[in-house]
């Protein structure tokens, strides 16, 4: 369960050393390197597929004929405790990925709608942590002094914190309210230090480069230097960290939902679907296989993509 924070820590660790290259890497060169790898093509393809599925969920559901909340009593057997009819959890022409036991709700529809929830939470949390992380990281690294002291202590505190159990405690105590927003906020509060630490380290090293000193000499203000010289040099790192955070947040959101502190039913989310499937593991294995596979492939795709992106940018810069 603690996978995610440490996973971020590992990402941060792996990206820990400041980049050695000069100017920003050419995006074209990176894309060129990336396009040659079949693993990247597959993972990018899958990400696009999932994103499209999430975006067009309402349309897809019209096509498949079953909404995410519609009960289908004919698809389940009331005499067997509500087990889906058919051997593969009710998979068939009517329900493409089978049905939920007892209610007979369509799993395809719930996967599509659940993907919306999972992806939007993960992407929002990534954007928010990136924003906080980059701002505080550059402030700490570039300006130093008291600001650096305060921000660094705060980061130390948050990173030494048993964040996962605390997230759970916090979410369980918070009133129902708007769960997705709460999830994004809670994930971000504990997620930003990992981004900020890397940014801080890198901006500290960039601060002393010749081109920054040259910019000073030509009379640029500190803010101008941050926006014109420091941030462009950090783009590669930020993009890589972002790509690697998304699967982390997807996993954590699923984990929190799995433990019952995520989005509230009837809203579907992948983690919650797997949690609902736990008691059925022996009688209806497809019920956990389907959302589990989607979750796995999505996280895997983002990780593979992030790994390769990181490598491509590194080698590009080393050249």
């Amino acid at each position, binding site marked *: *369960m*603690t*996978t995610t924070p*440490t*996973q971020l*820590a*590992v990402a941060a*660790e*792996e990206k820990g*050393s400041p980049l050695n290259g000069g100017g920003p890497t050419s995006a074209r060169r990176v894309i060129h390197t990336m396009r040659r790898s079949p693993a990247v093509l597959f993972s990018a393809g899958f990400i696009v597929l999932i994103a499209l599925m999430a975006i067009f969920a309402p349309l897809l559901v019209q096509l498949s004929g079953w909404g995410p909340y519609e009960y289908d009593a004919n698809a389940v057997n009331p005499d067997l405790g509500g087990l889906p009819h058919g051997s593969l959890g009710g998979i068939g022409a009517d329900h493409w990925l089978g049905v939920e036991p007892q209610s007979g709700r369509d799993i395809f529809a719930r996967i599509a709608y659940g993907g919306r929830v999972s992806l939007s939470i993960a992407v929002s949390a990534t954007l928010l942590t990136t924003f906080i992380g980059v701002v505080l990281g550059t402030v700490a690294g570039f300006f130093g002094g008291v600001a650096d002291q305060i921000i660094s202590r705060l980061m130390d*505190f948050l990173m*030494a*914190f*048993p964040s*996962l*159990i*605390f997230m*759970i*405690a*916090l979410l*369980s*105590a*918070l*009133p129902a309210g708007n769960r997705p927003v709460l999830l994004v906020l809670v994930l971000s509060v504990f997620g930003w230090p990992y981004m900020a630490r890397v940014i801080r380290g890198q901006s500290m090293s960039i601060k002393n480069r010749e081109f920054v000193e040259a910019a000073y000499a030509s009379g640029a203000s500190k803010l101008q230097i941050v926006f014109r010289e420091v941030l462009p040099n950090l783009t590669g790192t930020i993009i890589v960290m972002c790509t690697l955070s998304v*699967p982390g947040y997807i*996993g954590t959101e*699923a*984990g929190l939902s*799995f*433990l*019952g*502190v995520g989005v509230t039913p009837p809203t579907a989310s992948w*983690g919650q679907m*797997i*949690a609902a*499937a*736990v008691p059925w*593991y*022996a009688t209806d*294995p497809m019920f*956990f*296989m389907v959302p*589990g596979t989607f*979750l*796995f492939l999505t*996280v*895997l795709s983002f*990780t*593979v993509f992030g*790994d390769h992106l990181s490598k491509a940018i590194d080698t590009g810069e080393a050249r």
Partner: protein
Amino acid sequence: MVSYFLRRLFSVAVILFFVSFLTFVIFFQLSPDPAVMICGKTCTPERIEQIREQLGVNQPFLTQFFTFLGGIFAGRSYGAGEAAIHCAAPCLGFSFQTSQSVMDMIVSRLPVSITIAAGAAVLWLLIGVSAGLISAIKSGTWWDKGAMMFALGGISLPNYFIALVLQYVLVVQLQILPFPSTPDFAEDPLFWFQSYIMPWSVLAFGYASMYARLTRANVLDTLGENFMRTARAKGLPPLLVLRRHALRPSLTPIVTLFGMDFAGLLGGALITETVFGLNGVGKLAADSIGKNDQPVIMGVTLMAALFVVVANVVVDLLYAFLDPRVRIKA
């Protein structure tokens, strides 16, 4: 060294104070009225008031917080007279839903969590670090590619998913293993091992993958550094170079991470314990969340915080011992 140690100890106290304060604020502000929960089916407003009085939840916030802190060090009583419930120090609170002291509940569940954490830790350290080392040495070979692909799967597979797949395949389909339980080792060693092997493997798979990736990256990093090039240029065989020069700097970050991860698990492997139905601290937390038994959630949170924070200090001290530079910095 002593002053360093004292300073670290002080920071532990500060962090723990903040953690308990934050936790208390959250639960004080947001949790439903415990008096209502205790009052039960045949409840009257007067009775609720009476229970509030007994629990002290009608006191101002700070008073309650310090009563709570006092309970940890000196124990406390809920209510007065014959109906009073005494909670001995260290009192982390009292669960009125189960009529048990939170501390007792945690302590009785701890052995299971420790067994799970320790077994998994042995597995993941052995497999993760050695796989990472071999991959780094044989960087670019099929072994490296295969191991890293495996590790990629490991970090992407949610552990509850692996747990369910394993349980379905091994318990239901092949019937190699029994449905896990938490027997005493002394009573039935075989059943004990059969019960824990799945949770160990599930936890270890994820962590081992991470550690393998990290070890590989670190070793490759170190091997690329200048002093290593010099060492190799001196004509030392690669394995010796690794052992003499690369191992220590590459493994120190692992020690940090391991301390944190292991301590985190002592506070309960929530998901693994839940899926396998093992009565550890994590399952206690998960169940309490389901029942909204706030004192227990709070107690487990604080306990987990204690483990992690203490592990941090232990790791730092270990670091200072392993790496002289840290001592100077401090």
